[in-house]
């Protein structure tokens, strides 16, 4: 079972040009996670948890830097993080669901990073060491979120876990759906653009100077 999971998690590292892109995508995920956690720190009513989220955010921001640096090394030239929106998980779903979601992500990330470390241990020891340092943090994040769900956020924790699972699956579906419909949409748009072009010939206009309004 572990061998199969390892294969799935590490398959794409072998593909040419994939390594730096995947490391950059990891960096992006870390950077977005840091945003979520900073917003959670601002929004939670409990100062102790706010501090926990800020520490977690600092870890994620540091991971993003490490991974971005590693992506740069793997590519051989500088890469920068694209700027995206963010999911606003805390604001949309509230604290218990947010933490259940984070816990899921950290647990999954920890399993995947264990596989990545094993994969790179002999192939690229420096990268393995970097991923290992991230892995240590992920274990900590996994356990503190579990403690929150068992302790201060225990009320309704099972429901929160279920909801987090649904959110997670829903996002996946939308990502898959978006990837599937993207090309379809592109073809449709190209077709429309060509077909409608004669209709829109009158659209040209490049008028300079003042337009006066009465």
């Amino acid at each position, binding site marked *: 079972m572990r061998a199969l999971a390892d294969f799935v998690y590490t398959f794409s590292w072998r593909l040419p040009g994939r390594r730096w892109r995947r490391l950059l995508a990891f960096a992006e995920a870390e950077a977005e996670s840091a*945003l979520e956690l900073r917003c959670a*720190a601002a929004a939670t009513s409990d100062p102790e948890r706010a501090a926990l989220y800020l520490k977690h955010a600092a870890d994620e921001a540091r991971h993003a830097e490490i991974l971005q640096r590693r992506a740069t090394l793997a590519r051989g030239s500088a890469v920068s993080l694209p700027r995206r929106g963010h999911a606003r998980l805390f604001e949309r779903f509230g604290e218990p669901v947010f933490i259940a979601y984070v816990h899921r992500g950290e647990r999954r990330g920890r399993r995947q990073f264990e596989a990545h470390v094993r994969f790179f241990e002999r192939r690229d020891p420096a990268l393995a060491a970097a991923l290992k340092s991230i892995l240590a943090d992920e274990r900590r994040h996994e356990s503190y979120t579990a403690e929150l769900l068992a302790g201060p956020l225990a009320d309704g924790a099972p429901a929160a876990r279920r909801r987090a699972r649904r959110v997670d699956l829903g996002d996946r579906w939308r990502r898959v759906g978006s990837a599937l419909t993207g090309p379809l949409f592109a073809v449709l748009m190209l077709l429309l653009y060509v077909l409608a072009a004669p209709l*829109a010939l009158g659209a040209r206009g490049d008028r300079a100077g003042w337009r006066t309004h009465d």
Partner: protein
Amino acid sequence: MAAVLGVSAHYHDAAAALVVDGRIVAAQQEERLSRVKNDPSLPRMAIDACLALGDIEAAALDRVVFYENPYRKLERVMVGSFAAFPRGAGFFRRALRSQLGDKLWVLDQLAAHLGVKRERVSFVDHHQSHAASALDCAPFDDAVALTIDGVGEQESTAIWAPADGGPRRVASIDYPHSLGLFYAAITAYLGFRVNEGEFKVMGLSAYGTSRFDDEVNQLLRVAADGSFRLRTSAFDEHLRPDRAYGDELVQLLGPARESQRPWDLDSGEDRRFADLAASAQRALEEAVLALGRAAHERTGARHLALAGGVALNCSANARLLAEGPFERVFVQPAAGDAGGALGAALLGARSEGDAIDGRFDPALGVAADPDRAMAVARHLGLNADRVDDPEREAAERLAGGAIVAWVRGRSEWGPRALGQRSLLTRGDDVTLRDVLNRRIKGREAFRPFAPVVRDEHASALFEGAPNDMTPAMTTVCRAMDDSLPGCTHVDGTARVQTVGPEGALDGLLRAMEGHGQRALLNTSLNAAGEPLVAHVTDALDFFVRRKPDVLYVEDVRITR
């Protein structure tokens, strides 16, 4: 008597503003809360923050007003991509995807988020929103508004006269003839991010000599009637919105600068880019001056109120006041798209029959909570204590060369830190400036810092200060001497902030005077590429990561 929420979103700098009974109650930019720089997404957090600040339920809103016409926007996108046939195919696909998948439905999104009837959500015109924000917040009458940006629905520039129902359009110039587009293209050409790096171009221009005027004048030409014309074939915003310039511009100006390379202004290559920035800045200033003269000729107004992204160019604003026909010039501080939210709310209030209360204080955002800062800081393992006289204590530290993070009251409206969320240090010490730039903020060494000074000392230190723009740092003034090298730019000017007796920094500046310092260096509490801090947790996050010497949240002192 109405409660009106104004919203801008979906292009860049989303924001919300709340006007109740004609008075501006709250205004908040989304990026400060979402922590995504220039966040364009529907400002859900900012909306909720504004309602909380106004202590009002969404159901009690009489009207929700979006700052531009989404249908005309869609029309322009479609017309623009067909006009560029066949090269516009990619743009058509991308733009239509974001329009149809998201932007077109903004009024429904607002109704759904707020839980109000769709009929209560309406829109106004983009440039009229800008104009309303400028005219209604200006501290004078007998004014004309000039709005200059990249593009609204169709126009890039407009002149507005005040009227009862909201600003009346006198004359306008249509996109693609656009000063915002021109400056965005130069920004991208110099390797900076569009809609964000424009400040850097302005800062860089002071390092260059404008030896490319002839080339730049081929791109942007000012007409005798004060209008201007772009050589549109050199601009390619439709096809490449992230760079806005086309191959023809490269043929004219030479190869563009790659964005990742660190700046070295001693190298011939980067000197060329600085010289180009200088020529582009000069051309922009001439065009803005010509627009100002045209606005005066058409209306005869004595005063000018500015808004739109180009109005954030404080060097151009300074020349408008110094060389233009107006006695006074005011810039609505959130002049970019964020400010459209405020204008939309003000227009909505007018249409509900409310008279607008023109008093304007930019401290309109979320409030600082010192108790919470203290509790969270202690959980972070930091020292946090209440102090009797934070001003006196901070002044002592500042005099000794400390870098102080300063959080006071409600956060600022507009791109500048005005003492509510500031990083402060002595202005007379270039070493401190360099520590701030490199270690604390992590940004380019050529970026200037700004001084802050009390009104009564302003004229002794800076030519023409204070004026209507200095309270929100929307202009530059020439320094009288070289006593503030840490916050005077290489060309001898400074983007000075002046503080009246009510200002957030008044007490601290008074305390500094006891140490022989009449001014401080004041910069935004954020690192390069991050939005300005709003909540105290973000201030703590910054303090832990970037390590200024001390953080004051009101009377709570936080140290490591």
